[in-house]
């Protein structure tokens, strides 16, 4: 089944935040942000801006009736800076005017005097200075330090991994208008309507019941609108509530790039020990996560880095420590993979390092250490329904990897200034929010008297087609066509206390809630149907919009059944609630059962380097992916493809650059490049693994949003290997591997 939104999309009729028809008297806001990364505000002069023709009011923290606080996990994030700024792009004031152009022009008239303080942008420097967002966290199993002596080989090294800009095509924004009795209606482009609602109530000093948040769809998010959408909603809400007028705040691309956080850059140290037969016996890693100025989601992201420290391998002795470092950059935040890729990059680098020292392909070590059924993840969860080995073997068989390797060897022998490289990227990714309490969802289902159905959930539609899947679930439960089913906007008055649409778990959680709601209605309808057909409810099934009894037609249609149920005053609405069972995690011990299940897969990636120009192409990406029993293979495959290309961009051309003063240099689309159609690999094959899905996945169809992003890391190692085929002195692990790093690497001289 196609995405139910596709017709709207191709005709331009789908509505995004900035497309909502404008109400009379709407005012427009522009954020005035800090131009230095760390300073005391000595004075703030708004007078010239206030006098600007068309300016209505300028807000600062002094105008906040409630709390100046929007921190999600830890309350360390103010909506407006008060007397100190901590990063460039931090909101200081909000200009509200009759038009966007006026608001922008007026904000240029605001004058601030700063007393500059020391700026730290490097995580290791921050750690050395004791600038940490949280105390360091360690997860461990066994004792690597007691194991090194038993290892035949021990290697250590460091890695660097840059951040990543989300570049959702629709920028952040919110549009609020006042309602009677001090209530507020808030439209906003967010993955977390409840977080917006809660923070707005806090800022305004009112109850959550006075704030209604509504989201139709997002033009992409990728984690960037999980926590970081909240500020803009709060700002627009503050102005709207104070002025009692509709207020719209949509960030321009440059404002968005400058003011919002990105994927966390990491700098890491590793030590890996192997036995003679290349079993990894011990692994120790220290991560320095560049958290930015405040916590945002860094605590949760740090944990996921720890969870994915060993990627797809079983290692008996592991110790991993993460320092979440406080720097003067915008707060780094969620991004598809959520700390997972950064953890996996280090273990893959450690393996690549061992392989290059031992002069063997990394795949030899990877293969000997793949996770098996019953292995213990080092955070205390037993590995079940493990499909790692199977996906690996299928990749070798289906993609003829042994032959490809030989072809590449021949090619490299025949060409001096063109070199190819290949890499294999296995993935194992845990599904669930690692904060156990978030693993809950609700849905509200109405069957209308004409047999049509309205479904509300807490899921946000942002391109992943979660609404299509929800319609499929309802269609499956009621035995009716999806054309009868409408997915409503996500609205906090219909479905309350939602978890963010994140962690790849949204279709699972909300889908189960929809299923529970539908099943309850179906149960009641079966009683009616049994009565109508003169049989027992257990005999009744609903299929093809017909009532069947004992599998045979009864002549009663879905519509007739609905009408009859209504006439008998049967409840045709239901709210479903789901909480994933079995989950727990003890943060103190670093042990538990944090994930409902894991997603597995193997990617084979090849790349070609032009050793004259220092350019490269990712040629082939072939993947065996574990979808479970995909409920919509077309949509799920699209998710894999999109994630892979995003992952490739992350490790190749997407280079976030800040200077020493904390200024973003890659501050526009002309300086921050994401993959275009030509940089997508010529061959991109995604083959589903044949394997039964787990019971906690919705209809046994596994979560698919995040895991495939990490296949993209294979591109890093394939390109690195191509460069090494020209020059083995190229031995760093520094992502992204831009054309600059490639050319410098190709012609790098022996130290």
């Amino acid at each position: 089944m196609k995405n139910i939104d596709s017709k709207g999309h191709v005709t331009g009729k789908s509505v995004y935040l900035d497309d909502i028809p404008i109400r009379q008297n709407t005012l427009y806001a522009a954020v005035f942000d800090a131009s230095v990364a760390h300073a005391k505000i000595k004075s703030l002069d708004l007078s010239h801006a206030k006098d600007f023709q068309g300016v209505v009011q300028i807000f600062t923290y002094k105008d906040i009736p409630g709390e100046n606080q929007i921190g999600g996990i830890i309350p360390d994030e103010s909506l407006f800076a008060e007397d100190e700024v901590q990063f460039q792009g931090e909101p200081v004031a909000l200009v509200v005017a009759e038009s966007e152009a006026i608001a922008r022009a007026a904000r240029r008239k605001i004058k601030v005097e700063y007393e500059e303080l020391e700026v730290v942008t490097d995580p290791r420097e921050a750690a050395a200075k004791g600038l940490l967002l949280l105390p360091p966290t360690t997860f461990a199993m066994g004792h690597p330090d007691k194991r090194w002596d038993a290892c035949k080989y021990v290697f250590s090294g460091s890695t660097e991994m840059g951040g990543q800009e989300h570049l959702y095509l629709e920028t952040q924004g919110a549009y609020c208008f006042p309602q009677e009795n001090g209530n507020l209606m808030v439209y906003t482009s967010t993955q977390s309507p409840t977080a917006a609602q809660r923070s707005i109530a806090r800022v305004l000093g009112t109850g959550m019941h006075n704030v209604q948040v509504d989201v139709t769809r997002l033009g992409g998010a990728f984690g960037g609108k999980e926590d970081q959408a909240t500020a803009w909603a709060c700002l627009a809400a503050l102005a709207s509530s104070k002025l009692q007028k509709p207020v719209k705040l949509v960030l321009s691309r440059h404002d968005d790039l400058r003011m919002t956080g990105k994927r966390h850059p990491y700098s890491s140290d590793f030590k890996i020990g192997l036995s003679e037969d290349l079993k990894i016996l011990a692994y120790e890693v220290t991560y320095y996560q560049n958290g930015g100025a405040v916590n945002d989601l860094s605590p949760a992201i740090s944990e996921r880095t720890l969870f994915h420290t060993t990627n797809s391998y079983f290692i008996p002795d592991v110790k991993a420590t993460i320092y979440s470092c406080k720097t003067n950059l915008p707060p780094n935040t969620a991004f598809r993979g959520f700390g997972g890729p950064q953890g996996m990059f280090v273990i893959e680098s450690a393996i690549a390092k061992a392989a290059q020292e031992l002069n063997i392909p990394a795949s030899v070590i990877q293969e000997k250490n793949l996770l098996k059924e019953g292995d213990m993840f080092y955070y205390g969860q037993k590995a079940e329904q493990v499909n790692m080995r199977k996906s690996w073997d299928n990749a070798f068989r289906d993609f003829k990897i042994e032959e490809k390797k030989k072809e590449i060897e021949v090619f490299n022998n025949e060409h001096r200034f063109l070199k190819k490289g290949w890499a294999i990227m296995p993935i194992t990714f845990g599904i669930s929010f690692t904060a156990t309490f978030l693993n809950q969802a609700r849905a509200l289902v109405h069957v209308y008297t004409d047999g049509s159905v309205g479904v509300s959930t807490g899921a946000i539609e942002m391109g992943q087609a979660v609404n299509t899947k929800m319609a499929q679930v309802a269609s499956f439960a009621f035995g009716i066509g999806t054309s009868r089913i409408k997915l409503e906007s996500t609205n906090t008055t219909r479905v309350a206390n939602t978890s963010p649409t994140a962690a790849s778990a949204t279709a699972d959680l909300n889908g189960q809630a929809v299923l529970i709601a539908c099943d309850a209605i179906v149960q009641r309808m079966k009683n009616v149907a049994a009565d109508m057909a003169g049989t027992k409810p257990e005999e009744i099934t609903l299929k093809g919009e017909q009532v069947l009894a004992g599998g045979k037609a009864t002549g009663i249609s879905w519509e007739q059944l609905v009408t009859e149920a209504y006439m008998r005053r049967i409840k045709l609405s239901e709210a479903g609630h789901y909480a994933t069972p079995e989950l727990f995690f003890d943060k103190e011990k670093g042990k538990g059962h944090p994930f409902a299940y894991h997603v597995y897969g193997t990617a084979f990636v090849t790349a070609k380097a032009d050793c004259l120009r220092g350019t490269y192409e990712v040629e082939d990406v072939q993947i065996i992916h574990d979808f479970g029993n995909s409920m919509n293979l077309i949509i799920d495959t699209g998710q894999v493809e999109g994630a892979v290309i995003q992952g490739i961009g992350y490790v190749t051309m997407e280079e976030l650059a800040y200077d020493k003063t904390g200024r973003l240099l890659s501050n526009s689309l002309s300086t921050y490049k994401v993959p275009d159609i030509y940089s997508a690999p010529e061959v991109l094959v995604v083959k589903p693994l044949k394997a039964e899905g787990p019971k906690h996945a919705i209809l046994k169809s596994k979560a698919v949003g995040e895991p495939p992003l990490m296949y993209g890391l294979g591109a890093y190692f394939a390109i690195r290997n191509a460069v090494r085929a020209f020059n083995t002195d190229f031995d760093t692990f520094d992502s992204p591997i831009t054309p600059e790093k490639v050319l410098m690497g190709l012609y790098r001289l022996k130290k």
Partner: protein
Amino acid sequence: MITFILNHQLIQTDEPAGMVLLDFIRYKMHLMGTKAGCREGDCGACTVLEGHLENGQVRYKSIVSCLTPLGNVQGKHIVTIEGLQKDKMSPIQQSIIDNSATQCGFCTPGFVMSLTAHSLAQEASSPQKVVNAISGNICRCTGYRSIKHAAADISAVLAGKDMKNPLEWLIKEAFLPEYFRDVAGRLKKIKEQAVSTESGKPVAGGTDLYVQQPDVLAVAEIQFMNEDASLQKIEIEDGFCRIGGAVTASSIVQNEALERYFPKIKAHFKLISSEPIRNMGTVAGNIVNASPIADLTIFFLALDAVVEMQAKDGRKRDVPLRKFYTGYKQLVLQPGETIRAIRFRLPETAVFNFEKVSKRKYLDIASVNSAMLLQLKGDVVETVHLSAGGVFAWPFYAEKTAAFIRGKKLSPELVSEAAEVLLSEIAPISDIRGSKEYKSLLLRQLFLTHFTEMFPQQFTPEVLFSKIMAL
């Protein structure tokens, strides 16, 4: 007042001529299908079609509405996604649905418009050409595989296009609504009217200016260079080529006569910006913007082009392009003077090459680019011109290197020694496009690559590098 046709509707508006079309479409006409993704020409979400009359017919191309001032659409037909509406999906829209080539959908109207522009092109379609047509459209969701499949399907449908009567065929096949049939007639009725202010800021395509200062230009007085048809001609005569200042990069690549002299021009120009930007950006705009990496300027520097200028009072003068810059963003062009054309000798027997490396191969600004022209007499270099971008405060003409090579016998030794001279006369700086060390190394590599490209038999990389590596 500006008059044009927007979809099927005649527009007569008093909005400022400097306002961008995107704002007019979205916030004045409330047509919300055209999206704002970046407002700097780099994402394609705002793509629309622009049609103008040519020999009685309407010729369409894709443009980005975020950088197009209203003044540039006077007398034109602008088509947004709403203007394609019919009861039925067009084959383009249908193929996107069939291939699941849309996820969040924010990029999709832009893709549909670029693809529709391709369907209106006068040349035969191929899957690769369809992909070229969407080279200016970024999608952050799909990963493009599905989009490429949609492109192939669209190309297959377009294989049946009736080239004698393309418009009727496109209407019949539901690519376009019926009202397109009447557009030519309606455009003819729009009276020519100048929307320029003579003393205003010259704006041609707007692809540099509207990125740099959109708020200022929205209300500024503007001289629209594209109004002057005499600036839009490409003339070839007596071994010389004269390209009008307002000629776009697309018009240059589409010129078949020029392609005979520059057989690789399609591949070279593909490295420059994207389809819609090439449809808009002009030669004079590229020269005057004076970016150190300006691709067209680098290209024409190696042809030793001459710039023809004209002052307000009509006085004309010529300056060689290599003498056009005097400092960072400093030009010999005086206030009030405009570029009428550039002129250069066509390479009859000379060989020519253009190289560009950027972080992303296409639709990106060069880290370093370079062009070279060589005319040999026997094995002696008779004429040589070499340019390099990204290594100096302005588009650089490598005078010393050229002088070093000129009159000498072409050999691997000469090339490697010339590379040394070249590196000694540049002054790259470290910036977002690369460190100065990288830019130096890259320029050396591109310089060598000129020879491997121009003389593949004689100068293999192995031969050249045996000299270099030994250095």
